[in-house]
């Protein structure tokens, strides 16, 4: 039974770049749609995007999922990118959740003002510093082979790739120095990870399309 997926989202990196990579790595058949917004907001199960629609061969909609990380884990588990052993899976998920937390802090900062803004810069700095040390330790523990666990591409490799790519721009002025903490070109273990992910054969279609899709990837801070 051939599965077909439609990812509904805006044409930005936003929350979805890791998911796009995961869908590509899964080798499955998928496309993307950009709903009219906010006209189609109320058509979505939870009134927000992203939404993943899975339909089976007969064209019937089997599953409609919301919540980015839930969709990520669903695809990752289904296509063997996340281990079935719950302890091993938890180890990956906590690292990925940490990446999401720091990204969220950055997003909150972008919409904040005044005292809260200042608080968030400090929080971002602390959490980003911590994140780098935790992730470097994990990569080293695995022998610095370009993967967080084992020797094959997995969920957290992909999520980390999307995260560090997102922050590889200079970013808004006030966060500039802090975003520099996440500059992977200065972190050997993460540079190795990035290169390894880019060389993955299962991701070749994504990187080919990226050359044509430059517009989306250039709008990092939207």
């Amino acid at each position, binding site marked *: 039974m051939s599965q077909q997926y439609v990812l509904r989202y805006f044409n930005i990196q936003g929350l979805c770049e890791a998911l796009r990579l995961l869908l590509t790595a899964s080798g499955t058949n998928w496309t993307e749609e950009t709903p009219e917004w906010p006209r189609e907001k109320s058509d979505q199960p939870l009134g927000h995007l992203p939404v993943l629609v899975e339909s089976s061969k007969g064209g019937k909609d089997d599953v409609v999922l919301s919540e980015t990380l839930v969709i990520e884990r669903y695809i990752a588990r289904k296509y063997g990118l996340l281990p079935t052993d719950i302890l091993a899976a938890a180890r990956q998920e906590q690292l990925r959740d940490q990446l999401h937390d720091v990204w969220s802090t950055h997003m909150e900062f972008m919409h904040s003002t005044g005292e*809260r803004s200042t608080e968030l810069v400090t929080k971002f700095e602390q959490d980003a510093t*911590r994140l780098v040390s*935790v992730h470097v330790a994990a990569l080293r523990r695995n022998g610095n082979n370009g993967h967080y666990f084992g020797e094959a591409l997995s969920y957290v490799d992909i999520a980390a790739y999307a995260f560090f790519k997102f922050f590889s721009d200079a970013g808004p002025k006030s966060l500039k120095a802090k975003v520099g903490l996440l500059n992977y070109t200065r972190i050997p273990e993460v540079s190795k990870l990035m290169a390894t992910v880019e060389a993955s054969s299962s991701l070749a279609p994504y990187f080919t399309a990226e050359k044509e899709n430059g517009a989306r990837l250039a709008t990092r801070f939207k």
Partner: protein
Amino acid sequence: MTADNTTPTYVLRYFDIIGLAETSRMLLTAAKAEWTEEHPEWPQEKPNQPFGHLPVLVEKSGAEDEEDFVLSESGSIERYLARKFNFVPTDNKQMARHEQLRDQHLDAIIAFFAQLSLVDEAKKEKREDFDAMLDKVIEIHTSLIRKNDDCGYLFGEELTFADMSAYAFYKLLVMYAVTFEADVAPFVKDKITPEVLHLLRTVESDPLLHEHVEKKGSFVAHILTE
């Protein structure tokens, strides 16, 4: 090896608040796991936590030569416990439904806390986001309860992760978020539908959570008597 104590024990590190740990507390209790809670000195113990945050779950295997398994991130902790103790189905799609609800609860909670520090127009807008999310959550809970023959659980006929997450969601807003903005408690209580109340009663009266309710008090009684 004939170890007679191969059952793991757990330590949950968090603050002495409802916060983000209530679901994990319920899961550990409902699982009949041997567990204790630690309240680290804060922020002194911050650097000692793997990710610099709480909650943290420590699973001790009981075997002498085995390292403890230390897990951070409340979502990861909840999902690990839910899976380990069979409070979610093993089927990928069904599990995703539980997780989706849990993340939706968290989104609404985050939206509430995000508007606290804002003022004027920005606060109004963000508060409206929270209101809309809350309405959506209640709508979904209500619909699921009805679809499930009004038996009082969200899915199936037994207590699951989704039920515990939903209970903790309402409890957090009415009993914890209220300490930040008093009006949120009556606001949420007014919106609770009969189906949601049925869910809360069912969760609270589940034998697996008897000990939890004994210790923490009845949330349902709190809603009904104020």
